[in-house]
């Protein structure tokens, strides 16, 4: 039977009422907005860990707790926090951190200057060598991943290009620390991999341009 306009409106009202019943009060809505972003971050984190384990052969261990702990705001590495350790035969150990800031390339070019807010930026998921502390330098970042849920807007692409600029110089393709996933080479020095994940299919439209500077725009839905 064909769907009529009144029927469709009724069903949308029912669906949104059920959603509201779970979302609750205005404070719950605020929390819900933040939590949705964090759930997507956790979703991408579990994807990244699975790929590093299955495609790259890393042995993955949660260190410092029995739960994965994301943060409401970014900051330096706090080694008392739970994080993931990556080990692979004959390779130096790596660590996976979330919601961590790194020190920018531009700050390293102004050595000695007192760091200001423009000298460090957040990355949602960060892979660095084992033992990193505080805000890792741009040259310590091996893999950075951003997570954008629901709607991908063009200013997010511009922000990603800015972070790429603060991670590395543009060069001929250079080997990364990874065999194949997420990339074996990247046109960047230092050769960090940088990727932006979104559950908005529109993100893929930015991938071709992003690849020129070593930024991967990836559609990853639930």
């Amino acid at each position, binding site marked *: 039977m*064909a*769907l*009529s*306009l009144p029927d*469709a*409106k009724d*069903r*949308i009202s029912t*669906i*949104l009422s*059920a*959603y*509201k019943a*779970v*979302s609750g009060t*205005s*404070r719950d*809505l*605020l*929390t*819900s*907005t*933040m*939590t*949705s972003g964090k*759930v*997507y971050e*956790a*979703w991408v984190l*579990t994807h990244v*860990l*699975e790929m590093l*384990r299955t495609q790259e052969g890393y042995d*993955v*261990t*949660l*260190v410092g*707790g029995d*739960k*994965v*702990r*994301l*943060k*409401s*705001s970014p*900051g330096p590495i706090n080694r008392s926090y739970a994080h*993931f350790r990556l080990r692979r035969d004959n390779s130096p150990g790596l660590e996976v951190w979330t919601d961590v800031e790194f020190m920018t390339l531009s700050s390293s070019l102004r050595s000695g200057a007192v760091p200001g807010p423009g000298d460090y930026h957040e990355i949602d998921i960060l892979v660095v060598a084992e033992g990193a502390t505080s805000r890792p330098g741009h040259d310590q970042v091996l893999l950075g991943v951003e997570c954008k*849920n*629901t*709607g*991908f*807007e*063009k200013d997010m692409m511009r922000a990603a290009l800015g972070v790429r600029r603060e991670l590395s110089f543009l060069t001929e393709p250079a080997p990364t620390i990874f065999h194949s996933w997420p990339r074996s080479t990247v046109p960047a020095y230092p050769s960090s991999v940088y990727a932006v994940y979104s*559950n*908005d*299919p*529109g993100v893929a*439209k930015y991938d071709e341009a992003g690849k020129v500077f070593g930024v991967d725009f990836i559609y990853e*839905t*639930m």
Partner: protein
Amino acid sequence: MTEEEFGELLEFVRAAVRSQGRADLDELLVGSRRIDAVMPQGQLLAYLEGLRDEIALRADRTTRQMMLRLREIRTENDDPILGVTVDIMDEDVAVYGARSIDISGSPELDSVVSDLNELIAQLRESGDQ
């Protein structure tokens, strides 16, 4: 349904989302590249798919799939990972009113996502008639 009716339905659902205090979500869905379809039916379907993805983030099914992925990873004591939480930093406690939020999905939202998927499928077929 006609394209005019699809347009009316899009305005209806946008108003309903905004009336629930989610003007932020409405703006995000409309401002993103999701809604770059030319015709109202395509715009409506893209909006509803975005809404479904947002709701799915809070659904139990999503949490279950994350925990399945984490099942292969152990702690230092060789124990399983028990869950995922968001720690609220000191500067954010007054905003969120809590120190920690457990990311656990709602089983009720599984059926909401399912209902929305069914509606999206029917609306897609309705345009072909």
